């Protein structure tokens, strides 16, 4: 789907508010037709990044290139991007139709042409026949669709979405995720999406940018980010993790939880402290006698597809996801295959 060509380039963007650094030397690029997600906890600078591209904030330093041209000084109404705001920001004095037609009317388009395009958009977002409704008479999900239609009707090069599904309930959110993704693929528009929901990011994105405290921690496709998190923070933020302090004995051998494990990582040096990350679903429950580690089941929670068990191995309590249940208090063995042990530099260094 996506093309090689860079549509937007952020180069060394920094942003300060009254001396507080919100973005610290951010660089990233967005390709045509790509679905990029900025993912991070609140206050990580993801919305500020979006607003800089939308033209609502000016970076303290750095360049924003759009098809190679610097657009930092360009006001929002001259940029070929449109934004879907967090709480939709629909115009309460206009009905659904006029909200969507707002941008087209400014372009002095003929009435018939506007009618055609707005009707097409209403169809696209499943709101055909809702044109005359007041926007505040719509449900959250419907308002959200109007907001998307209002932006998309202008045929932007890039659609910026600022946590657009945040106010919706879980079921609706999941449906809208799929709908947005298919809409993006059908229309061939570049999406830049901001969210703090890791599952949403993994479901929809071509590329995920993980941010924290104004820094980019990792850029990559969902699978890469999930399987090879750059540091313990990313690992913890993307999905659930067991994060332990460990020591790299030498290449492909690591020690944690009181014993040594073969692994596949190398190049850290010998006898250096590292962070070890193991996903809960990567721990296999085996017989007490054949386990690499032995522990006692402390608690069991039923989570639908799997059970979540906390297993105390003396030095560390592992979170384990398994489809088979071991009763509370029983002794079990834990095994991890080398491939599933992720070694990373300790957090302090990785954050730099």
């Amino acid at each position, binding site marked *: 789907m996506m093309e090689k060509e860079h549509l937007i380039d952020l180069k060394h963007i920094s942003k300060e508010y009254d001396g507080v650094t919100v973005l610290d030397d951010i660089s990233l690029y967005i390709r045509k037709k790509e679905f990029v997600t900025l993912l991070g906890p609140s206050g990580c600078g993801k919305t500020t990044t979006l607003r800089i591209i*939308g*033209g*609502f904030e000016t970076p303290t330093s750095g360049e924003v290139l759009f098809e190679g041209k610097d657009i930092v000084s360009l*006001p*929002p*109404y001259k940029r070929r991007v*449109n*934004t879907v*705001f*967090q*709480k939709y*920001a*629909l*115009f*309460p*004095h206009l009905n659904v139709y006029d909200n969507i037609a*707002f*941008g087209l009317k*400014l*372009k002095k388009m003929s009435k018939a042409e506007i009618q055609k395009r707005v009707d097409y958009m209403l169809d696209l977002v499943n709101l055909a026949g809702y044109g005359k409704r007041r926007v505040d008479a719509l449900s959250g999900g419907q308002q959200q669709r109007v907001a998307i239609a*209002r*932006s998309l009707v*202008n045929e932007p090069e890039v659609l910026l979405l600022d946590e657009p599904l945040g106010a919706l309930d879980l079921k609706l959110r999941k449906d809208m995720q799929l709908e947005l993704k298919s809409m993006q693929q059908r229309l061939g528009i570049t999406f830049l999406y901001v969210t703090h929901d890791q599952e949403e990011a993994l479901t929809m994105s071509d590329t995920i940018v993980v941010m924290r405290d104004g820094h980019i921690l990792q850029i990559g496709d969902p699978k890469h980010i999930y399987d090879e998190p750059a540091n313990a923070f990313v690992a913890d933020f993307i999905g659930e993790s067991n994060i332990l302090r460990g020591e790299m004995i030498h290449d492909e051998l690591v020690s944690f939880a009181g014993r040594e494990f073969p692994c596949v990582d190398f190049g850290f040096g010998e006898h250096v402290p590292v962070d070890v990350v193991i996903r809960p679903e990567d721990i296999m429950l085996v017989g007490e006698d054949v386990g690499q580690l032995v522990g006692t089941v402390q608690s069991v929670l039923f989570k639908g597809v799997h059970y979540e068990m906390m297993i105390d191995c003396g030095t560390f309590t592992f979170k384990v996801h398994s489809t088979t249940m071991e009763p509370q208090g029983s002794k079990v063995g834990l095994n991890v295959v080398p491939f599933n042990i992720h070694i990373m530099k300790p957090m302090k260094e990785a954050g730099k």
Partner: protein
Amino acid sequence: MINNLQLPPWALWAMVLALIVFIAMVVISVRRNHGIKRSLFASPYILWMFIFTLLPCVLIAYYAFTDVNGHFTLDNFSSFWDSNYIMRENLRSVAGDEMAATVARGSVNVDTLVYSLWMALLCTVVSLILGYPAALFMADRKMKLGPTLVVLFIIPMWMNFLLRTIAWMSLLEDNGLINAFLERIGVGKVQLMYNQQAVLLGMVYNFLPFMVFPIYTSLSKMDPKLAEAAQDLGCNDMLTLLKVTMPLSLPGVISGITMVFMPSVTTFFIPRVLGGGNTRMFGDLIESTFKTAGNWNLGSALSLIMMVLILISLSILRKADPNGEGGGIV
């Protein structure tokens, strides 16, 4: 000035009755609830409202439809349309129809009303033109000066309305500050007071805050994201103002218009002080009909006409802002 006209006896009885009913209700309420209910604390206010708002309104209606002797009549309203009506009728009874026909129609009352409405309209328009940009400036989050400006607008309101108007006198009068300055720079004295412009100036000065604050409130309540959305969809600053900010501040504008227009029509102190009696407004007329002419019946009729006009314009404005979002007096 006490005039020869007395309150109708039933007005006194109504007050006594209200007091008895009030005390009885309080007693019943305390007995039934075995103590004091919270709603009981509102009762003094209800009594106050009855004696000082409702009863006077009834009295105005009563006087408007009666003559000096307390008999029903519509003469007061005829006198509103034709201020020589009573004179002509008196002449008719003494000298016959022919003589009565020589008395021309007097238009003082209607003319004054029309003039008042015109002045109030001017005052409202000028206040809106001056007030809207001020409110816009005050509500702009990017302007550091906004909050200071709000305070500057409020401070004069802490001072008495009469004092503020009299203060303008010392600025505008022949030997006032402005003329002293004009003389010093060689322009010479200019007649600034006792004309329509001075009255308008005084009215705008006094009523401007009532225009600015409702607009300011509705503007500062507005989600700044809406202006951003407008920009995002292709509006420059001017178009954002016209297409989004202004329509959304309409409730505030309506509230502001109400709060400036209503008191403007009935104002009497400003035209008296700054207009020097050269320009007479309806409030002035009502006041002098009551006090100088001592004609409570005509005065009440004029007041009633004023009230009806205000109610009509209120209901029109209410149509434009059905939710009362402007929060004013509507």
